[in-house]
């Protein structure tokens, strides 16, 4: 599961069985700092989100379990709207700059 920002919608009329009525959004992974952190992907929407919203997504087989019909052909789904992220330990992953107070 990771943080992402909704950046667009996907319209698809012909879909495999089980995906009827499922809304698809384009999401962009977001890092701790709020900046884009990876390639965009398409996610099934389980919580009625809209473009520009910060959300969290579930990956893998479990993604389909957020939808009404389980075990459908989905490997990424939006499972919640994020109101706030509190990063209380702002630490550089590449090692903190020494000597800076």
């Amino acid at each position: 599961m990771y943080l992402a920002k909704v950046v667009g919608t996907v319209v698809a009329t012909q879909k495999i069985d089980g995906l009827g009525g499922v809304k698809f959004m384009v999401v962009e992974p977001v890092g701790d700092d709020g900046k884009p952190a990876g390639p965009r992907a398409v996610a099934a929407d389980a919580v009625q989100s809209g473009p520009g919203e910060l959300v969290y997504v579930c990956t893998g087989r479990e993604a389909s379990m957020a939808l009404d019909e389980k075990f459908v052909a989905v490997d990424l789904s939006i499972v919640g709207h994020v109101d706030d992220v509190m990063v209380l330990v702002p630490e550089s992953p590449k090692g903190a700059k020494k000597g800076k107070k």
Partner: protein
Amino acid sequence: MLLGKVVGNVVSTVKVPDHDGFKLLLVRPENLDGSLAEKSFIALDLVRAGVGDRVLLLREGSSVRDLVGQAASPVHAAVVGIVDEVER
């Protein structure tokens, strides 16, 4: 399973019903040398961990689903322990 560090809290009010009542933590896994990995992910908190804690992470769907107690819950990662010490 992974070692990691809790780096933040995620607040979400509108979410799938299966996640109700669980705290969401932003965690960063540890690399082999003990440094923190670049990419963070969100894990369901099952042990009342907090920001700054070094934790044990589970990142495999079916095991997490077992722990959550719902057979078909959209969860993929969980915090399953608070680490006191690691001998290397």
